């Protein structure tokens, strides 16, 4: 594996088996994630984008090909990989603080230092007043932020984001895109975002990989080439042309 590459799919195929049929979700997929980059993946819905994240996190094994993450197998790398689901999945009976500590707790990494760091992170991202609140008392955007802190609390070396904003309303979504990109870039994390929203992919990513319909394959990778926070990117003169090229690539 190249030194700069932190995760790699090499000629990967994936077949889902059901009693009545088998579905090719992914076929002959090559994709490399570079250290420190923010890679967006867009594709038609149901094309197997999420499967790629499941492969990277070792939740499923490829039928063919090779997956390497952090210099080892996805299963072995899993403790160092953070996964954000579509919905926050906060536990209703835990306070925001205890929800954020869940990953550390499960991994046996919870101590005074990590607890303080997590609480500091919650405070930094505007949840300081809600440490002892329950998830049901928070708005959707704040809940998702608490979920992000839960994912970042154990300092993962690779972040997998599975449409983490799709369940939010438009305004919250734009605001959170901005904040999350800021958080991830400031922290120097490597992230892979899966989305069906072209604008979101462009606003958050350093590169955008366009997937074909099922079975998923990389059609083309676009370097974004627009700097700055997510919200400002929408106003860049480069935004519309890039959006169009991706749109065309998707609709071929």
């Amino acid at each position, binding site marked *: 594996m190249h030194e700069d590459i932190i995760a790699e799919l090499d000629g990967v195929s994936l077949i889902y088996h059901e009693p009545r049929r088998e579905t090719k979700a992914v076929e002959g997929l090559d994709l490399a994630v570079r250290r420190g980059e923010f890679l967006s993946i867009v594709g038609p819905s149901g094309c197997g984008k999420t499967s790629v994240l499941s492969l990277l996190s070792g*939740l499923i094994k490829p039928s063919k090909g090779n997956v390497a993450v952090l210099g080892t197998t996805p299963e072995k790398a899993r403790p160092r990989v*953070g*996964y954000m689901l579509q919905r926050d999945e906060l*536990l209703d*009976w835990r306070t925001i603080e205890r929800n954020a500590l869940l*990953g550390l707790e*499960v*991994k046996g990494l919870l101590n005074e230092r990590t607890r303080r760091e997590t609480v500091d992170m919650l405070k930094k991202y505007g949840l300081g007043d809600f440490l002892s609140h329950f998830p049901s008392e928070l708005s959707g955007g704040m809940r998702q932020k608490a979920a992000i802190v839960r994912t970042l609390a154990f300092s993962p070396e690779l972040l997998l984001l599975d449409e983490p904003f799709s369940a939010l309303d438009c305004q919250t979504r734009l605001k959170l895109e901005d904040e999350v990109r800021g958080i991830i870039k400031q922290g120097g994390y490597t992230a892979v975002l899966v989305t069906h929203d072209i604008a979101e992919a462009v606003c958050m990513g350093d590169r955008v990989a366009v997937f074909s319909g099922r079975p998923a394959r990389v059609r083309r990778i676009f370097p974004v080439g627009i700097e700055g926070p997510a919200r400002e990117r929408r106003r860049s003169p480069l935004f519309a042309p890039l959006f169009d090229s991706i749109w065309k690539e998707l609709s071929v």
Partner: protein
Amino acid sequence: MSGEHREYLRKLRRGRRAVALSRIGLFALILLLWEAGGRIGLFDPFILSSPARVARTILSLAQKGELLPHVLTTSFETAAGFLLGTLLGVGTAVLLWFCPTLEKVLDPYLVVLNALPKIALGPVLIVWVGAGAEAIIVMAILVSSVVTVMSVLAGFLEITGEKQKLMLTLGATRTQTFIKVVLPASVPTIMSALKISVGMSWVGVIVGEYLVSKRGLGYLIVYGGQVFRLDLVMASITVLCALAAIMYFAVAAFEKRISRRFGA
């Protein structure tokens, strides 16, 4: 507070009071009709008894010291059956959650066991564990635990999917997933299973006492029926009602306390 809100609260209170009054009123009406019907010769109080006769019977039983042993026996058997049945039921549900293959294999057996009227096993139980309190408690456990297994297991299985995926991505073991997610999330289900289980335990104990016992409210009811003392039967049923209500509300109060902790 706005006037409109005050008005709303007043209406709410008035509505609640009306329900409470109606409940008491209905109870009084039933007692009144029951008592009056017997006195004016609408029916024979020897067959249907009457509130006054029931009260007199309970009082005289209590004075002779005959009530308490029966009450204690039945209460003990029910409490034992309920606790052991719940323990066995929840324990089995946990085991089946941890072993999905075993769960699949045993599923038809559970379904049949659930459909089977456990009372049919009464004679078998007497042969196996003897004609005593043991048989009655085992009957209560049988009746209450199968329902508990089914409903608690269904509760466990409902909480899979995304929450389980979350725990997987965090690298949790199956035990961690169970303790940190499945069990706390199932607290409401377990609590409602407890409420059903209390009722089932009473069924098991009373049926058990019908079959074998020399003591307890079930025995009193059967005995009263055999010697045609309907006052005794009605008095026992009244006491049974009160006991069942007390136990149910105790479990309901327990449920409320627990549920508050889990925010469900």
